[in-house]
């Protein structure tokens, strides 16, 4: 059960590692060992007349996982994350609560000497827990947290959003991180997530890795409408088309979030929505100025793209007796780029290639965690997406 984490981005020759593991242990022993290893590592580089290096942990991140493969994957991502944010990570591998109570654990502490010689520490505790303790997640995690820094809870897979254990886990964290791309039943989980977001206190943040993935699309649209001369077209949008990768209904969450973002940001009021064959959704809305807006999204088979990933976005708008059309499409022939095409009025259409590379999970996590606890734009987009998809059901 020794950790197989490879620290990407760290120079192996500058990493000093201490490890401990036990197949059958107690939380008290784990806390003691963590403290021992951490102190030993801190004193490691310091000379006799020097202080041990100061703590530079900026956050706790707790990951709840339910499979060996996922646990390893998450371990690697959190180690990656520590190369940007010195942190303590706790991976809680949840085995069956119906088995006899047992805790196995491993601890890995890395001190990475930066170029200027100062070490940065990352501690990763992996717990394998079975039995009744799983119903008391807080008692497993809280003793391991570094004090006075934020705690982020990353619930991989489909979180049991209405489960009491989930709510108990939420009490010890500042932010809940989920990935709606990995939801088993995306529609139901999205609605549950929206309900949870609506109920949570304002101090608590919810982040979705899938929301971070659509950020690029949001940026492109925001950039396009930045010049004041184009701003009237923003308020004159009357048609939106979104294609996402998949077959049938597939995972509409990203498309829904993008549509929800536009609706909630531009104040469009949902009038009706309908779902057709092949995952097609058509929604009819009214803009604040009174003109109708139609949003359509559909699944399109696409090789090499993750299910649900947005493939293209089209907008049509009218303002000042002129029309404008904009499309952004992933370029299948040039990975990591998209083709932006737009035309305004009688002007010759402009075509440009933009970098639009997909981000890895560690990068997405960083994006979300540096934003802070609560992203009101995500929350209102989530609620609008839930409304839209619920109406189309």
């Amino acid at each position, binding site marked *: 059960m020794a950790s197989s984490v490879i620290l990407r981005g760290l120079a192996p020759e500058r990493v000093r590692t201490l490890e401990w593991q036990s197949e059958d242990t107690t939380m008290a022993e784990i806390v003691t060992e963590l403290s021992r290893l951490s102190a030993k590592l801190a004193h490691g580089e310091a000379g006799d007349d020097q202080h041990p290096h100061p703590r530079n942990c900026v956050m706790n991140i707790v990951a709840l996982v339910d499979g060996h493969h996922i646990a390893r994957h998450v371990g690697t991502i959190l180690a990656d994350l520590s190369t940007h944010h010195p942190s303590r990570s706790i991976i809680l591998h949840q085995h069956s609560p119906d088995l006899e109570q047992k805790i196995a654990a491993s601890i890995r502490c890395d001190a990475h000497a930066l170029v*200027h010689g100062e070490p940065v520490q990352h501690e990763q505790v992996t717990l394998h827990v079975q039995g009744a303790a799983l119903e008391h997640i807080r008692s497993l995690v809280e003793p391991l947290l570094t004090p006075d820094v934020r705690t982020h809870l990353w619930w991989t897979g489909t979180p049991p959003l209405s489960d009491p254990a989930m709510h108990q886990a939420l009490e010890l964290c500042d932010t809940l991180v989920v990935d709606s791309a990995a939801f088993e039943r995306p529609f139901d989980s999205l609605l549950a997530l929206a309900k949870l977001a609506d109920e949570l206190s304002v101090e608590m943040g919810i982040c979705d890795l899938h929301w971070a993935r659509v950020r690029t699309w949001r940026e492109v649209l925001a950039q396009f409408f930045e*010049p004041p001369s184009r701003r009237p077209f923003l308020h004159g949008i009357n048609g939106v088309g979104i294609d996402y990768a998949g077959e049938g209904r597939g995972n509409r969450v990203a498309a829904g979030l993008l549509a929800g973002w536009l609706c909630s*940001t531009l104040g469009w009021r949902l009038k009706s929505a309908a779902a057709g064959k092949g995952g097609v959704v058509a929604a009819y809305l009214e803009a604040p100025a009174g003109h109708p807006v139609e949003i359509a999204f559909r699944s399109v088979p696409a090789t090499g793209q993750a299910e649900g990933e947005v493939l293209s976005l089209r907008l049509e708008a009218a303002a000042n007796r002129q029309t404008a059309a904009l499309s952004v499409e992933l370029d299948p022939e040039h990975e990591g780029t998209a083709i932006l095409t737009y035309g305004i009025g009688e002007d010759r259409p402009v075509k440009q290639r933009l*970098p639009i*590379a997909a981000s890895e999970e560690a990068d997405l996590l960083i994006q979300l965690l540096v934003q*802070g606890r609560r992203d009101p734009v995500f929350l209102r987009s989530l609620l609008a997406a839930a409304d839209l998809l619920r109406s189309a059901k």
Partner: protein
Amino acid sequence: LTTTAPNPLAEGLHEYRTASPAVMVIFGGTGDLSSRKLLPALYNLAKQRLLPPGFALLGAAMDQIPADEFRKRITTSVHENSRTQPVDDAVLESFLSNVDYLPIDFGKPEGFQRLKQRIEELDRESGAGGNAVYYCATPPATYASIAEGLAGAGLARKEGSQGLRRIVVEKPFGTDLKSATDLNAVLQRTFGEDAIFRIDHYLGKETVQNILAFRFANAIFEPIWNSHYVDSVQITVAEELGIEHRAAYYDKAGALRDIMQNHALQLLTLVAMEPPVAFDAVAVRDEKVKVLRSVRPFRGEEVARDTVRGQYVEGWVLGEKVGGYREEPGVAADSQTETYASLRLRVDNWRWAHTPFYLRTGKRLPKRVTEIRVQFKRPPHLTFGREATRDLEPNAITLRIQPEEGISLRFGAKVPTAGIRIRSVNMDFLYMSSFLLDAPDAYERLIMDALLGDPTLFTRADEVETAWRLIDPIEASWRDGKPPLQTYAAGTWGPEAADKLIEGEDREWHRP
């Protein structure tokens, strides 16, 4: 600048700032600054998706090369100098698809007419909306003629429905007050102050901006940031390098004009300024100018008393023997140019009365380091007695700008022995240990600000001129040999006279 409602789609896109589309013209696009800094910075902005759709780049220089050759040079410079590696080919390719080149003679009006034509074509092709940003990566002597040339071709001031027009110029801004005033007059006449972006790249450095964050985002330091508690402030801008093939420029400029007039005084303004009401261009720059106006100007013999100038002679730096300044290629054997300068300044305002500011800069010093040291007064009473506190130095906060960005607090702690003995210890904070993110290069930040039209981190005309008003009397006195030019061995912290400058007030230079 057009005032318009915030873009609602930009809400929540943290660190997201988007500029209007524009054609950016880099004069001197094939030169050293472009190759080392500007082009890699633009590539990295493209990589971060910060360049707006509709952005196009036009290189303009004397070299008679085709556009393809310019694009090849960009590829080479990005591969060699980009802070992010490996280079993302997809990003580079999409960036290059919006790049063009025009050979131009800055001295000929017809060159600017051809430039106008090319900008208009690029504007149509890219949808830049008539916006243009001109970057002068050329010798300072060309700034005025470029501005006049652009104005003559109708490319300078925004007129009627034309898009925005901005010009970016690099320091040095003049060589004295008169030349700076003349240059400002030309730029203001052709572009207007709002459209002039004077780059002192020091201000684009993350850690320089962090000085303001440290002071004004924390409540615990500002109450003691004044002459009641602060004994003195030392600002050090040291380089281990010599003049590196820049003799033609440096021998005319010297340390006073090259570093003291801009970088060192900029640091002084940031550490001494009053809290601005907002982090915006007007508020921040107003406060900086107030500091410069508060600095007591040198009169008569004060220059000889409060300044030191030095020139390095042969010595050892970083384990290698190096020659003296006068032995550098291109330097006259009897050159009187200073490679070291230190000043004792008084800031005559309510906050800083009686707190001296010691500034020093030099070449061929032991190492490259920039830092600000705020030294506090000793406690009014020695509770533990003189013997127990023999090793105790005054409290100090050191703001390290480079190379290891961080903050260090020195305070006294009891040595763990049976008796009482207090010793100084340091509590160090390193930005790199807590924020392991790649900070953007100063040029990325500043180019982006110029595209956005945010001049907060650029130098305003009155700031430049006020700084020259302080420097000119020193220059004049130094020309008269007051104080005389001292020498110092390369690899030391400057001439002995610099030590005496500060020791005379019962202080000593901090060893960085």
